[in-house]
């Protein structure tokens, strides 16, 4: 079985070319955060202000603080996501506090999925998910441009077929 193209052997040990996520996902997550927590803050403020007095309405600042913290967190999390296509495997690295790096050899891929929910579609985003025979393999790349997601899917499928291996 042909595994690995010979011309790539030299570059194999080189640092992989990491690709980050496009800013669309960051925008979407931050917008969702602002919308939901903003609504919560307003609702809480109005309710407390009317029922318990204006002093109590200060509690509405709590969701706002949460929003500020979440804004930073989402940014850090978004920056931590990156992936790299190497000659024979796909690398996915993510996480700030709990860091995780996954390597999936192309030959082990059983199925590549491109999914896109209604909100994601509105923002022009799609995620690519890789499945191997092991259910524990959790290889998902969220928030890609649909065109990039489809390119990745086609390329992974093609590489997977070329290097296919059984269980």
């Amino acid at each position, binding site marked *: 079985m042909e595994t690995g193209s010979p011309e790539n052997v030299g570059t194999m040990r080189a640092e992989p070319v990491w690709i980050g996520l496009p800013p669309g996902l960051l925008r979407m997550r931050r917008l969702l955060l602002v919308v939901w927590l903003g609504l919560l803050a307003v609702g809480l403020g109005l309710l407390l202000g009317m029922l318990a007095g204006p002093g109590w309405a200060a509690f509405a600042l709590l969701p706002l603080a949460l929003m500020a913290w979440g804004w930073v967190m989402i940014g850090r999390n978004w920056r931590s996501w990156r992936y790299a296509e190497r000659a024979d495997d796909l690398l996915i690295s993510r996480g700030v506090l*709990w860091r995780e790096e996954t*390597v999936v050899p192309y030959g082990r891929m059983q199925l590549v999925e491109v999914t896109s929910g209604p909100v994601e579609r509105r923002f022009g985003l799609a995620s690519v998910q890789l499945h191997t025979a*092991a*259910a524990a393999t959790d290889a998902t790349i969220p928030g890609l441009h649909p065109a990039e997601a489809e390119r990745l899917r086609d390329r992974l499928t093609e590489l997977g077929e070329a290097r296919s291996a059984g*269980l």
Partner: protein
Amino acid sequence: MTTPGVGDAIREQRPVTERRLHPVTPLRRAWAPVAVVIGWAVHDPDQAQRQLTRLTTTTLLITLAVVVPAAALYGFLTWWFTHFAVTDTELRIRTGLVFRRSAHIRLERIQAIDVTQPLLARVAGVAKLKLDVVGTDKKDELSFLGADEARALRAELLARAAGFAPETAHEVGEAPSRELLRVPAGVLAVSLVLTGATWGTLAAALVVPPVLWLATESAWTVLATAVPLLGAAGASSVGRFVGEYDWTVGESPDGLRIDHGLLDRTHETVPPGRVQTVRIVEPLLWRRRGWVRVELDVAGSSNSVLIPVAPREVAESVVARVLPGVTVPPRASLSGVPRRAKWCVPVWWRGYGFVATDAVFAARQGLLRRSVALVPHAKVQSVRLVQGPWERVWRLAEVHVDTGADKTVTARLRDAEEAAELLREQAERSRTGRRDARPDRWMA
């Protein structure tokens, strides 16, 4: 058949003979209503007793006159509507009276075949044939077949799965088996006596009910706890002895043969190259005698014991036959974890260790009950490096290796740099490891 033309063409090309199960099968179904009644009586004893006193002989007779023929009819119909057929590439099972189900199982995807004979089936001379296929939760089974027929069918399925020509697959017959290991009954009994779980459940069964009686003085509570506890104690001692009695591991061109059981005989066959992980477990009390237990994982299978008990050298030689080209790395060759790991996992950190040889990824864990898990590089589906915040502080990380049997083997508490290097190397090794693996059709 919506498209008769196409269907006919296929049928002409390959005549498929459909067969039925053994005629004893309907009797198995006859138990169903009885089981329902017993289940109801156990579930609600008060009500059951009241109903029983109200029953007169006539109503009883009428009920019997209705239930028994109904059960017999149900059994007969399910038997009548269950067919199976072996084609060149598939085993087809067609079943169902109301809800039709037809399963086509690709022979080269079969992970293991078991022939089991429960006690009553042994008396009747019939056997069950179970198939392990990746991705199904439930085993597909053919129950019951005549004992000889089951064995012949297993031989035929394995021959076809191995890639023998379809014309000769009938005649290949049962592949000769060479015995690798037989566990003597005495050793098995001693090993169970030396197992903590046996004593634990037994102690629980003897202590908990009296305590409950003193505390509540309610007979029902005591019964409700004592029965399951005694059941668990029985299952972990006598049950295991009966199940693992006369454990024989054999080797044949068809793969690994595992036969065991005192009352219910089970004959498992795992074709070559199907084993995903092997675990060698050494309970504390067995260490002085040098005994180990060996478990294995096959994709889509639930049965996992390879050897219930055997001396370490014998077990290692069997593992070497199961995973060709693999020698079990000696315990000393597994490098331990850095001392600073004690801040992450106090005391038990000493139990962790790991080594990657040319053929396997091996990780050990446990201090009292030691175990070593082996994954051949060719079976690795994906490799993951995970590092939590507290581990980052101590520059430690874990490397997970996922296999097709949905099991993950972890090298815990490695030095962070070593782990990063290991991640790269392991991905490379699992990619190249597949090159010399045997094909799915191992005789082709």
